[in-house]
């Protein structure tokens, strides 16, 4: 059974309590992390400190609430520390700090770091005889960072098939719709020109995501997950403001109602 609705409730609870934003960014990648942690990646509470387990790098670190919630649902972090999100004397900041808990694979928050980090991990893994997977979740806006393309070129040149990039393509970035910044460039076409196997999927469909993430490919793989920013909350879906808005008492009630309907 999908954990997505529970993860969404956790996100709303955390962000309401801490009065933080980036809620839309967290809600768009719920199914991506759900699929990775519950269906695809070899990551458990028991193997969390093992160097041979798979890794998930949330390169779009501002969506960290989704990662904290997913790790909680997975039993890797406890409810008690989930309550320590972005509050005074808390434990989890609004962008990832690797030292905050086991299971946070990297610090992130500045964009364009995740894919290069994955290259280093994969290179070291191969020297150590480890063949685990490294899943990097980045935003569509994040693909404007030059370092992402340095990494794409490197991954393609060395055929690093254990690195899988998932682009959470929610069509918005800070301040504007992504297409108004990069002129509707066809990212699939550009990636394919690097000899990358590109798969476009419904980023809110766990089955589709899981199937494509598990698929064996000839070349390194990028999954372009078409998503909805602010997914599942009517007052946030497909809006730019969902990047910044905070949840008021009134909206909190509405959010929980809408998500509870989704339980059924």
């Amino acid at each position, binding site marked *: 059974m999908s954990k997505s609705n529970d993860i969404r409730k956790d996100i709303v609870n955390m962000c309401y309590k801490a009065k933080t934003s980036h809620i839309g960014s967290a809600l768009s990648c719920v199914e991506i992390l759900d699929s990775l942690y519950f269906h695809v990646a070899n990551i458990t509470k028991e193997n969390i400190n093992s160097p041979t387990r798979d890794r998930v790098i949330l390169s779009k670190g501002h969506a960290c609430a989704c990662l904290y919630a997913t790790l909680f649902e997975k039993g890797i972090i406890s409810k008690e520390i989930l309550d320590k999100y972005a509050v005074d004397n808390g434990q989890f900041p609004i962008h990832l700090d690797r030292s905050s808990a086991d299971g946070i*694979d*990297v610090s992130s928050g500045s964009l364009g*770091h995740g894919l*290069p*980090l994955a290259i*280093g991990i994969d290179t*070291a893994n191969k*020297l150590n005889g480890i063949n685990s997977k490294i899943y990097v979740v980045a935003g569509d806006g994040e693909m404007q960072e030059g*370092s992402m393309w340095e990494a794409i070129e490197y991954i393609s040149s060395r055929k690093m098939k254990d690195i899988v990039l998932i682009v959470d393509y929610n069509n918005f970035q800070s301040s504007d719709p992504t297409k108004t910044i990069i002129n509707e460039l066809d990212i699939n076409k550009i990636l394919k020109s690097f000899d990358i196997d590109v798969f476009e999927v419904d980023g809110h469909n766990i089955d589709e995501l899981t199937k494509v993430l598990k698929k064996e490919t000839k070349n390194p793989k990028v999954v372009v997950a078409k998503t909805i920013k602010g997914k599942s909350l009517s007052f946030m879906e497909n809006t730019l403001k969902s990047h910044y808005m905070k949840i008021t008492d009134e909206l909190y009630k509405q959010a929980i109602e809408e998500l509870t309907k989704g339980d059924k």
Partner: protein
Amino acid sequence: MGYGILDKFREVFPDRFFNTGINEQLSMSMAAGMALAGKKPFVYSIIPFVTMRCFEQIRVDVAYMNLNVKIVGVGAGFEYGACGATHHGTEDMSVLRALPNMTICAPGDNREMEFIAKDSLNMKTPLYIRIGRHNGGIMNNNETIKIGKASIIEEGEDIALISTGNMLPDAKAYAEKLKKEGRKPYLISMHTVKPIDKDLVNSLINKGVEINTFEEHTIVGGLGSAVAELIAESGKGIKFKRFGIPDEFSHYVGCQRFIKSKFGIDFLG
């Protein structure tokens, strides 16, 4: 990059050598990723590119995560003089000194380099090693040389010349000049700029010894600044002077010594 300089390592350890390409951001984060997976990478390039082009990758991926990454920059100061300011290594210590978890070494001769290289293998935290390009001869014959502990090369009395990196031969020449004038200079190699050897500097301050610092680097934020901070906070107003590059870019065309002489920091005569 120093063509051919790493050939021997590449020949002996072909599987441990990666020519990652012209992509400093990627290369630095990649090194951090390798450290996350248990390796001990060294990243090498010319100073401006391996420190400032990828500064934010150093800050977030290396320093913030406090990883075992060693950064080696070649071309301290004007070692790549004729190449122009794009290739000058003149602000690297200032910017990296501001980063928590970062250690900064600038060996003054090949012997210091050898000890620091070996000592670096015992460190599990970020380290920047700033090197010159030319062999100015062995100056430090101390039995042991350790990261974090300055080397007294010559004992003195009334003035201390504290040098870092490739300015050591200049500081030595300046010491000889002072001796002829009847002064008794200490010659000290501060091969670790961060953390600076506070004990040694404070002991000089407490003895009321005049201090001069020598660095082929901007006087803003490097060795001179680090020593000045100690002097200022000691409350003992000793005489002090920084020899270094003034707060300006070089537009001079010429070799290292030519540019140094234009800025008044060539003491080799």
